[in-house]
Every structure is written in structure tokens, then in C-alpha cells.
């Protein structure tokens, strides 16, 4: 940090210092760091809510929070984790890495980049602050289904406004990312020679531009139903609550892939580095990512098999959903083939990547189970679904974020992180994650519904195992915070190419990456 400060002063005499630097910065590395810190803070906020939920579920009956507050916690936990933790983390990676990876000096629209970030804290404040208004936060679930979201109090309006602001931020961020990638690549870097992380973000950014406006439209209609006498979803006036579900999930399913495609990109860098082999099947990886993105637009109905669609509709959404397993399988097999006969070492990023490949695949398979309409009709709204999406989001998205952070921390800070503590963090996380979420499969199969603070006594043991795992998992993440702070403050000096097997333009600049890089575009070979 000190070094980069000094560097900034040498180069730019009028760069503000202290807090003002972060309010006014247009530097992609500063903004990337702010996104990462914001994401980590929101991760702990959302994690705290999850622990209150798990504490309540430790025993049957109502002990800690009343059912209203429980519903509010599940709603805001999800919104905070999705829009506050996972998405900003990937945008943080994009800000730091895309200019470094394509050899650009900064993002295409540096000022808009600053604005994209500074929209996030007010939105998060609205979201989390809604707990303090009369009636408490929105309790409709993160999907904001009517009629609950029409009946709710002022907190629903705050949530809708927060979603609008975060959507605007995402669209601006996406415009920035696409323009940077398409217009500012180093000479010689053709599209099919771009690093995988850049490819996955290019596709993700298009998904964001395609579906964020649809979500904005849906929540705007909710708002007018609530306050301006329209009847889009209000059955009393001839509206249809089911229509909200269709529009919401038209956004919601691509959103799921928005949260996993950049993860695929990060993993596609870590595995080749530590297997010391080229990524197996680069072009099939690109096509698989694009296929997943395209398919994501025609599978939304699998979130609502139980609303009474015609059998033909159910069948279409079932087969379309199963089809996604094909490109996803291509990616998983490519990662395994990359490791096959490689000279593998298991530093912390590689541990997270291997953990990702194994555990994400479990989540993928439980998703395939849920894709089968008759099975889903039984399992809909049970803990099986909760287990499924935590396997793809925690051991998918979050594992890749953790792995990516360990992988690029030497480049960002100039220091190697503490490898022993990093490995300890991985093992604590991986083990407690499975203690937390694996029993939830059994709970769901046995019929325990999600989003309910109480449960029948026969579910007690598995819930207690899950809650103990959750507390272990939550507190293990404090170790991550400690490792990151320790790495920023000092540690072994990182070389420009911090990992023996690493490839890419970002490893050609010194560590820590100077405040300004690639002022003249590098030649890409």
C-alpha cells in the first residue's frame, strides 16, 4: 500500500490523498479494491443474518426471533449476499483484472466506474437500514412475490429502490466492462485468445444488460401496484400474481449464471497455473459459456413448476434445464482434463479451485434432480432447494472468489499471503460448509419446508448439525479477513510472476501492480 501511494505521488501531483482519494478516484485498481472491501463487509453482514437464522433453527419452536423477523432475515440475507456480496466481488475482480489482462491502461469510462461503485453503499444502506423502519424489513423472500410484496410496509419500497439503484450500477458496470474488452485489448489479442476470465465477464456483462432492465420493470410495476392504483399483479383489480413470477424469473435465472460464469473464469485461471498445464479445450470453454448464457433465457419456468403451467410448458422447461448440464459438464470435464497428468501443487487457490470443482458439481447434480418436474413438485420449497443453491453459490461462487482472492493477492498487495493460515482457512471452510449444507438435503427430502422458523421435532438432529456447521463456517471467515489484512501489511515479497505456472499479461507488471499500468499497450504474443 505504502509503495503504491508513493508511486501515485510521483506520477500524479494532484491525486487527492486519504479518504478523498477514494471518493474521487477513477483508477480501476482503487475502484476494484473498494468493490472487494464492500463485498467482504456485506458478506459478513449477510453472514450474521444467516447465523441468526441458524441459531433460531437450532431447536424446534420459537426461541430467538419471531416469525416476522425470521422472514425478514431470510429475505435480506439473500438480497445482501446476491447483490451486496457475490456480484460486487466479481465486479471488483473485473475492475482489477480486466485492464491488466487485456493490457489496457484503465477501464473505458473511468468516471462512470467511480459512480457505479458509489451507488452501491447507499443501496446497501437502504436494504439493511429497512430493518429499522416501522414493521421491519421486507419479509416477502428475495423474489418479492406479490401479494406479500404488495401488502408490505415502507421497507418494501426501500428494497425496491435499492434494487433499482443496484441495477443501475450493474448496467453501468457492464457497459464499462464490454467497452473495455471490445475496444481496448492489446494489439495481437484476438477474441479467441482472450483470457478465460475476460471471456466469462464479457458474456456475463451482456447477460446483465439483458436482464437487469427486466427486473427494474418488474419492481417498478410492483411499486405502481402499491402506490398508484395499477393492477399488474393485484388480483383484486384483475391482475395476476403469477405474471410477476414469470417476469421475475426471466431475470432471475440469467441472474443465477451472472453469479457463476465469472467464477468459471477464475477457476479456469487457477487450475492451469497450479497444474502447470495449458487450459484443456479453450475454445470449447468459450462456446460452453456462451451456450449456458443463451440457455439461461429459456429455463425460467423451472422455478415455478408448481404454479399450474400446462404439461407442455412443464416438459419444455424440464428438458431445456437438463440441456444446461451438457455445456456445464463440458466445463467440469475440461477442468479435470487440465489437471490430468499435470504437475499439481496444492497452494490455497488450488485447494479452493479443486473444492469448487467437486462441490459445485454436487450442486449441479442436485439441480439436475430438481429439474425433473415430478420430483420438483415434491421438493419445491423444501430444504433440498436450500441445500442445492448453497452448493452452487457458496461452494461455487464464494469458493471461486476466495480462491481468486488468494491467487491475485500477491499481485494486488505485493506480498505473499500466509500459506499456512490460507490452507487452514480452506479446510475449515470446506469441512464446515459440508457440515452446514449437506444435512439440508436430507431435511428437504424428509419434507422440511424452507423459510419457516419452526419445524417438526423429527428434524431436530439434522438442524442442530447444520447450525453447528454454520457457526463454524461463519467464524472461519474471520480468519480470511485476518489473512487479507496480514497480507496487505507485510509478508514475503511477491515477484512479478508470483506463481511459477501463471500466464497472462497481469504477471508481466511488477507486484504490487503500479498505480498506472500499460500506459502504452503491450504486444500480446
Amino acid at each position, binding site marked *: 500500500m505504502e509503495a503504491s501511494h508513493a508511486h501515485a505521488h510521483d506520477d500524479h501531483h494532484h491525486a487527492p490523498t486519504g479518504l478523498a482519494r477514494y471518493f474521487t478516484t477513477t483508477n480501476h485498481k482503487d475502484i476494484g479494491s473498494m468493490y472487494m472491501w464492500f463485498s467482504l463487509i456485506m458478506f459478513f453482514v449477510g453472514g450474521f443474518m444467516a447465523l441468526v437464522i441458524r441459531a433460531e433453527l437450532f431447536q424446534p419452536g420459537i426461541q430467538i426471533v419471531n416469525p416476522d423477523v425470521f422472514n425478514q432475515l431470510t429475505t435480506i440475507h439473500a438480497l445482501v449476499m446476491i447483490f451486496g456480496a457475490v456480484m460486487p466481488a466479481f465486479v471488483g475482480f473485473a475492475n482489477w483484472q480486466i485492464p491488466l489482462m487485456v493490457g489496457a491502461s484503465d477501464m*473505458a*469510462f473511468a468516471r462512470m466506474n467511480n459512480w457505479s461503485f458509489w451507488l452501491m453503499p447507499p443501496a446497501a444502506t437502504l436494504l439493511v437500514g429497512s430493518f429499522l423502519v416501522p414493521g421491519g424489513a421486507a419479509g416477502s423472500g428475495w423474489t418479492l412475490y406479490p*401479494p406479500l410484496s404488495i*401488502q408490505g410496509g415502507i421497507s418494501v419500497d426501500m428494497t425496491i429502490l435499492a434494487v433499482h439503484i443496484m441495477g443501475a450500477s450493474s*448496467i453501468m458496470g*457492464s*457497459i464499462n466492462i*464490454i*467497452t473495455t474488452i*471490445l*475496444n*481496448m485489448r492489446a494489439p495481437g489479442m484476438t477474441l479467441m485468445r482472450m483470457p478465460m476470465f475476460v471471456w466469462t465477464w464479457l458474456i456475463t456483462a451482456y447477460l446483465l*444488460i*439483458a*436482464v*437487469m*432492465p*427486466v*427486473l*427494474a*420493470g*418488474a419492481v417498478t*410495476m410492483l411499486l405502481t401496484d402499491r402506490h398508484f*392504483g395499477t393492477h*399488474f399483479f*393485484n*388480483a*383484486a*383489480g*384483475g391482475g*395476476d400474481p*403469477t*405474471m410477476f413470477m*414469470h*417476469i421475475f424469473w*426471466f*431475470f432471475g435465472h440469467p441472474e443465477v449464471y451472472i453469479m457463476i460464469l465469472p467464477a468459471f473464469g477464475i477457476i479456469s485461471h487457477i487450475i492451469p497455473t497450479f497444474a502447470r498445464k495449458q487450459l484443456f479445450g479453450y475454445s470449447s470453454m468459450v462456446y460452453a459459456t456462451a451456450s449456458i448464457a443463451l440457455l439461461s433465457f429459456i429455463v425460467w419456468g423451472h422455478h415455478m413448476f408448481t404454479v*399450474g*403451467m*400446462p*404439461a407442455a410448458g412443464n416438459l419444455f422447461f424440464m428438458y431445456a434445464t437438463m440441456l444446461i448440464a451438457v455445456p456445464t459438464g463440458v466445463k467440469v470435464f475440461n477442468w479435470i482434463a487440465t489437471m490430468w497428468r499435470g504437475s499439481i501443487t496444492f497452494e490455497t487457490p488450488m485447494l479452493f479451485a479443486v473444492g469448487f470443482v467437486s462441490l459445485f458439481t454436487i450442486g449441479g447434480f442436485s439441480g439436475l434432480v430438481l429439474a425433473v418436474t415430478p420430483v420438483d413438485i415434491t421438493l419445491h420449497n423444501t430444504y433440498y432447494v436450500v441445500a442445492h443453491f448453497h452448493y452452487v453459490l457458496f461452494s461455487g461462487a464464494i469458493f471461486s472468489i476466495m480462491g481468486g482472492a488468494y491467487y491475485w493477492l500477491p499481485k494486488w498487495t505485493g506480498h505473499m499471503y500466509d500459506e499456512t493460515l490460507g490452507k487452514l482457512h480452506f479446510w475449515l471452510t470446506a469441512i464446515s460448509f459440508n457440515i452446514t449444507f449437506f444435512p439440508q438435503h436430507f431435511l428437504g427430502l424428509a419434507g422440511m419446508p424452507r423459510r419457516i422458523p419452526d419445524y417438526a421435532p423429527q428434524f431436530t438432529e439434522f438442524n442442530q448439525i447444520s447450525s453447528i456447521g454454520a457457526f463454524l463456517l461463519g467464524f472461519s471467515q474471520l480468519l480470511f479477513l485476518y489473512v487479507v489484512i496480514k497480507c496487505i501489511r507485510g509478508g514475503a515479497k511477491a515477484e512479478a510472476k508470483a506463481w511459477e505456472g501463471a500466464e497472462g499479461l497481469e504477471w508481466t507488471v511488477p507486484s504490487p501492480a503500479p498505480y498506472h499500468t500499460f500506459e502504452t499497450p503491450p504486444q500480446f504474443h
Partner: protein
Amino acid sequence: MADMSATLAQRNALMARKLLIIAGMMGCFGLALVPFYRQICEVTGISQSRIVAQSASGSVDPTRDVTVEFVASNSNGLGWTFEALNPIVQVHPGQQTTVRYRVVNTTGHRVVGQAVPSYAPSQAAPYFKKLKCFCFDQQTFAAGEARDMQVVFVVEPDLPTDISRISLSYTFFDVTAESGGKS
């Protein structure tokens, strides 16, 4: 790459404009889903909210029995009692049947309600023809008023044979505020 003479800033601005247009088009697409959805429901006959009188067609099929269940519920905050007086009836397809619902306004003030029907299974909806129904209009009840209301219906003979039981649920919504001067 088409225009090499343009500066990077110009090319970036052009790209941003194109992407903004895509975002705007997707916003319009999201709003267009509303009429599109209604159209789909109309065409496929799964519209749950058809509230206009229809005429019956076809003859009675005495060889088939269909069980029709009637359910009554109030939406949040509607302070009256609402019950189905004939909760289960056996009908032959094509046979015209009348059932009654009763509302007692237990509140101390005038209430205007609108009932919205919902079918299970939803595939039965197109075959369930209502000749007369209290759900066609808003219903006004003075304070303390009690009234019985009719549903006259026919289940069409071409109802798919795998459906032998239909549930029809009415939910009453309080529309007093919106009905305003009308009473």
C-alpha cells in the same frame, strides 16, 4: 475496427450508446411481457381471471360424473365472512348447475368486494363455463348486511377424461377504496 480514424474515446462513446440502447430495449421488452403474457393465457385458455358470462354449448353426458369443489377465502384485511353453501357437488358434463355462496358483512361500515376465481387443476379452466356469477361485478354490502349469491355453471362435455375433480376457489378482495363514488 471499421473506422480506424475515430479516436478511442469516440469509439468507446459509440459502443456505450449501442449498449444503452440494448438496455433500453430490454426494459421495453420487460414491460411488453405484460400484454404478451395475457395474450398467451387467452390463447392457451389458461387465463384464471375470465370474469365475463359465457353461454353453454353441447349436450349433457349422463355417463360421466365430475366432482366440483367450491372454496371461499378472503384476502388480507377484508372483514366479512364468506362461505360456500354447496362446498361439493356432483355434476354431469353439460348439466347446468347452480351453487350459492353467502357473505355476511360483519364490519360496521359499507364494503365493496371483488371476487377473483382460481381453478385447480388449471387445465380445467377453459371447460368451466359460468353463465352467471357474483364475480362478474363488484359486490357492495352495507354494514351488517347478509346476502346469498349465485354461480350458475356448466362443465363442458369435452373436458379431458383424466380430470374428474375440479376445485374452484373464490377470493374476495376489498376494493372499497378503489370503487370510490360507485355504490
